[in-house]
């Protein structure tokens, strides 16, 4: 997967990551992964690009590192404890204050060294900026190669791709369970859209819903015990809620038009969704128990077409796709003020999802006629394009924080 970074944050924190001692024996360079993560975050610039190794057992010379332009220094080493089992040690220093910020000791086998590097990157961003990093979270997306569709799981940087499902038919609308152990998705492998819940560790999956007609648009309740889905079993597409094992189906919307793409608010009290009850598709919000008690309230007003609502983890922002001037663009709405901002300069944006820390939005788009993934920071400063030469990439979804 290729990554192209466009634009950077305003003032970048200069950090030196010296090459981890003895990592040259590893299949993965911890140092390179950490440096790439920091650069891609939009917050840091690397002052070191070479192979200089700093001993991680003694205090560094703060004066020398300061004169090289670094405000912080990360040093580390790798030890093979038993064949294929490694211990990665890392320590962080505040160069300006001349003090140690401590570090981590991570045990890793050869195939999860990238995750060790992501954990170290998360520790650096947390200690220097007080922000919970998303380097060790995961993405799902669909790769279309010829007539084949692959639903894959990758690291947050799009690398380290593992297959979850391989099919000759489309797969759309993947949604991570809140604990990151499962994904729900829509597969067309049986000639129609059916919703599955797939456990990543075991590869086992269940049919969540195969009612007559369409079954689509799964969204997990924050407690992971139920999902909202869209079904057309009674004619038009309506929103239902179902337990995570497929039991206890109940209808939430009661209209004669299209109601679809449900999304729970982070507190689980509301469901945002797309409805064309007013003539055009717009975003509405109802109680998570449905419209019986109180009808849904319209949320989007500024564009004639608004779909694919996603709510930021703090509940303050709504990302959505707006149809404007023949194109479809990612927009961000401040839910308190109702102000909306166009986030991209592309025309075929789709499938937004927030990073677990709310700082970035991942989405699908087209660049030069090719289907690619993109991520934009919520402040609009940093944009990244993730592409796979010769393949279309689509339907991304950014996974949650994983318990460590």
């Amino acid at each position, binding site marked *: 997967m290729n990554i192209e970074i466009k634009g950077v944050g305003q003032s970048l924190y200069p950090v030196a990551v010296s090459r981890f001692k003895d990592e040259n024996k590893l299949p993965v360079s911890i140092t390179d992964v950490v440096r790439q993560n920091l650069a891609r975050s939009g917050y840091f610039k690397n002052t070191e690009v070479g192979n200089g190794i700093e001993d991680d057992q003694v205090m560094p010379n703060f004066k020398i590192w300061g004169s090289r332009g670094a405000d912080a220094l990360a040093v580390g080493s790798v030890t093979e404890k038993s064949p294929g089992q490694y211990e990665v040690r890392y320590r962080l220093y505040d160069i300006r204050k001349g003090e140690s910020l401590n570090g981590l000791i991570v045990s890793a086998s050869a195939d999860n060294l990238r995750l060790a590097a992501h954990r170290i990157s998360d520790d650096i961003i947390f200690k220097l900026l007080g922000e919970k990093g998303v380097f060790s979270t995961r993405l799902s997306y669909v790769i279309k190669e010829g007539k084949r569709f692959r639903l894959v799981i990758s690291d947050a940087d799009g690398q380290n791709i593992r297959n979850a499902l391989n099919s000759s038919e489309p797969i759309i609308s993947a949604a991570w369970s809140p604990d990151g152990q499962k994904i729900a998705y829509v597969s067309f492998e049986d000639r129609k859209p059916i919703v599955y819940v797939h456990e990543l560790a075991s590869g086992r999956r269940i049919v969540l819903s195969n009612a007559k007609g369409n079954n689509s648009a799964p969204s997990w309740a924050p407690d992971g015990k139920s999902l909202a889905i869209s079904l057309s079993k009674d004619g038009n*597409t309506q929103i239902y809620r179902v337990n995570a094992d497929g039991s206890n189906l109940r209808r939430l919307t009661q209209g004669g038009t299209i109601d679809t793409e449900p999304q729970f608010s982070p507190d689980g009290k509301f469901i945002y969704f797309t409805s064309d009850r007013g003539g055009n598709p717009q975003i509405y919000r109802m109680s998570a128990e449905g419209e019986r008690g109180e009808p849904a309230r319209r949320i989007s007003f500024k564009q004639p077409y608004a779909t694919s609502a996603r709510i930021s983890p703090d509940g303050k922002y709504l990302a959505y796709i707006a149809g404007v001037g023949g194109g479809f663009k990612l927009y961000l709405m401040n839910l308190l003020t109702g102000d909306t901002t166009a986030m991209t300069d592309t025309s075929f944006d789709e499938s937004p999802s927030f990073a677990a820390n709310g700082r970035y939005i991942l989405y699908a788009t087209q660049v030069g006629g090719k289907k690619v993934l993109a991520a934009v920071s919520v402040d609009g400063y940093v944009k990244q394009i993730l592409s796979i030469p010769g393949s279309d990439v689509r339907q991304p979804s950014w996974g949650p924080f994983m318990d460590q």
Partner: protein
Amino acid sequence: MKTTSPQRRLALASILGAVSFLGACSSGVKLDDLSTVKAGGSDSSNFASQPWNDPKSPLFQRSIYFDFDEFTIKPQYQNMLQAGAAFLKQNPQQKIMIQGNTDDRGTAEYNLALGQRRSDAVRRAFAALGVPDGQMEAVSLGKEKPKSEGNNEAAWAENRRADIIYLTK
């Protein structure tokens, strides 16, 4: 009516490389060569004997095209729908799936619902002609399976469509 099952191979659980995280371990399910069934799909032994595969049969035409942002069926399809309804009423064991499609403008899930509106319009037209609901299922492929990949009006028009599929099991 003689029906045979198309061979739909479903190869489950071919583990693709163990994926290991510090905490979680992830492997995959491989589903290979799923559903090769297409419109009118059946195996070759009785392909010609199915009336919908006979170019002279009124059942041969199985696609209904729609205008942009529309799901009303144009009058030109009335004869075709009547022939289909007569056949279905004479053959109560015969089931059909109606697959709605959209052009690729717009987002996936909303287009899925729009395509379903088209297939449901065909289902309701058949129901009005007396076809029992139990013989029909209206579904949508949205914009996911375009017949024509182009980015122009000719391609879009080709994709604004509902297909009637006579199920052979």
